[in-house]
């Protein structure tokens, strides 16, 4: 299981770095919103992997909050951007 955990961590770290690159490069705020959503999902995946590795469910409620937060975040950014476009 340790090998699996290390592999998954490495994969998710690379994915997170790529997503972060998109957040930094933009170019528009909507690109950043989409990338932030993906980054949040990667964080959820990382926390779930940690819980699976250590068989410890303490962090699971955090996942529910994060899952909802990503949605609220992108929707509010999208509304903000839509208002500014008009």
């Amino acid at each position, binding site marked *: 299981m340790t090998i*699996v955990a290390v592999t998954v961590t490495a*994969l*998710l770290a690379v994915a997170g770095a790529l997503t972060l690159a998109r957040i930094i490069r933009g170019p528009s705020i909507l690109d950043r919103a989409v990338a932030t959503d*993906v980054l949040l999902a990667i964080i959820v*995946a990382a926390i779930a992997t940690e819980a699976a590795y250590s068989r410890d469910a303490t962090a699971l409620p955090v996942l529910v909050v994060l899952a909802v937060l990503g949605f609220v975040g992108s929707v509010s950014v*999208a509304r903000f951007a839509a208002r500014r476009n008009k």
Partner: protein
Amino acid sequence: MNLDAVLDIVAAVCLISGALLSLAAGVALVRFPDLLTRMHAAAKPQVLGLLLVLVGCGLRLRTGVDITTLVLVGIFQLATAPVAAHMVGRAGYPHDDIRSDLLLTDELAAHLDRVAEDRPEPTPA
């Protein structure tokens, strides 16, 4: 081979393939040319990757309370990801971020033009 070992192996496969799909989503975010194609990356491999990781996590934990929490996270993800993508797409549509030279047809532009033409006359809501 007992059941525990089998479940662990299945969980490991789920975790790794989920992480691979997350990586693919990250690569797609960097490589795709415009906002709309990037949103495809955020909507599909990301959702399936997260679902697989959650399944792997559930197979490792194997207790009722934790599995209900994971199911809830999965349902939220499935229900909200398309809505978020739709909101972003709508906000970004008539915008410079979208490479119209890569579009074969654009029927939404025609529709918006028609809506703009109709606007002077009072339209029933």
